[in-house]
């Protein structure tokens, strides 16, 4: 696997309604272990994955936010979210648990273009 393809993972699912968010993270970490550059884009309800102060204990499930804070250890530093999705959910960057780059919706196309492979969860 000498080929280091860059990967954009588009996250469109809320953190706890399904296991999509968790599956996405597992794929991101695996690809990072294989030294593939991984970027994450959060759209729609996916922005809720980034929220500060998640309390999933009552659901007997792991805290998604805690796993996101581990991303820099895997060299995953490029997290993108669109300003319109934040606004739609009534959020500001201070409400998020990890540093993100805020982009305009029209920039999504160029983000997709900049990566070799796109996966969606």
């Amino acid at each position, binding site marked *: 696997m000498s080929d280091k393809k860059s990967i954009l993972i588009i996250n469109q699912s809320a953190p706890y309604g399904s296991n999509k968010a968790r599956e996405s993270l597992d794929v991101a970490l*695996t690809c990072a272990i294989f030294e*593939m550059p991984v970027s994450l884009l959060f759209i729609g309800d996916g922005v809720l994955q980034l929220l500060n102060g998640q309390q999933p204990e009552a659901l007997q499930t792991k805290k998604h936010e805690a796993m996101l804070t581990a991303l820099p250890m895997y060299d995953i530093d490029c997290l993108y979210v669109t300003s319109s999705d934040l606004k739609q959910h009534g959020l500001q960057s201070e409400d998020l648990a990890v540093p993100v780059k805020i982009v305009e919706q029209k920039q999504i196309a160029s983000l997709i273009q900049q990566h070799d492979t796109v996966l969606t969860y």
Partner: protein
Amino acid sequence: MKFSLVVHSSPISQQSAATAFRFAKTALEAGHEIFRVFYYGDGVLVANSQIAPPQDEINLPEMWQALAKQYDIDLVVCIAAAVKRGVLDDNEAKRYEKDAANLAAGFELSGLGQLAEAIALSDRVITFGA
């Protein structure tokens, strides 16, 4: 072109599982190559040999098996997703002390590294059932 597919959808309840199959078949018939199909999430249920759909419904496990045999495709099932849904090969059945293995012939249990490899070695990776 060399494609790999990622299938997230259940073969029983979601249309996109059948769409993935039709995409693979059409691509192969058009002369393209399918390097690997990676089943993830509920998509792993396709490898349960105990699935018995009614006779007037399609049987996706059998359809994939036949296609893989004809074109020599790698059908890889995510082991973590499979084991927690009760899709086990002999090794996993023994490891978790279950009564029987039920992984259908032609499918292989393996890790997410196989998805990373498919991404590295394919021209296009297409996701079904995101």
